[in-house]
């Protein structure tokens, strides 16, 4: 029986334009525990989902065809998203770190910025961090 919000699984939104990477991340999360996972392959779709049903953790690729990662983070911050964020990218580490700094400057809670592919252990650590940062569920 579920008698309160703390027992609810962490809500995770995965954003990547590559269905292969999305499936892989979903599978890794499945191995790591019980999560409420949603996926998006477009930045615009992810923004709509953030608005309608904000997750506790947003895991997003920085290279999206419809919007670059920096612009996406700016929109996420403008929407007032107050969950946590993990950035993923196949770009150079310096670019990833710069994106992380810019996102933090927007006021977002960035838990990490990882190159692809992210290792299961690293993802597990980040998910645990997200659980620690978890806020009480927001009422819409």
């Amino acid at each position, binding site marked *: 029986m579920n008698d309160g919000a703390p027992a609810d699984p962490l809500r995770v939104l995965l954003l990547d334009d590559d269905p292969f990477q999305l499936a892989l991340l979903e599978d890794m999360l499945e191995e790591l525990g019980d999560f409420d996972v949603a996926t998006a392959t477009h930045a615009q779709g992810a923004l709509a989902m953030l608005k309608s049903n904000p997750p506790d953790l947003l895991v997003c690729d920085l290279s999206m065809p419809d919007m670059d990662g920096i612009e996406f983070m700016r929109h996420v911050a403008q929407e007032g998203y107050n969950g946590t964020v993990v950035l993923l990218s196949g770009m150079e580490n310096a670019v990833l770190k710069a994106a992380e700094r810019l996102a933090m400057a927007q006021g977002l809670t960035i838990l990490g910025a990882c190159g692809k*592919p992210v290792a299961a252990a690293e993802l597990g650590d980040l998910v645990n961090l997200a659980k620690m940062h978890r806020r009480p569920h927001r009422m819409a």
Partner: protein
Amino acid sequence: LLGYHPQKIRKFAFKFLHTTKDGFDEIETVMKTGNLARVRELGHRIKSAARTVGALGMAELCEDLENLPQEEAGAIQARNLMARLWLLLDLVTEQIMTNTTFANDD
């Protein structure tokens, strides 16, 4: 990434082949319209997936697609790279078929 789960490895290996073939097909289509920006985006996307499955030679060629020069030089280079990438996809497919054929066996 997946640990020792032969069936899962097989599943993701085939998913990689399918998404990569779809990506290459899209590159061929957009090359005809001269949309090199989209070719670069797809090169970047497939590069990450190729690295994930350990197809590092394919990832390198995809990185070259990602960094295509402008206009005619870029279009020529893209055509050359795609010719090599299709051959490489055949080889990777053969490798995956060979190495995961018995994945359903206990």
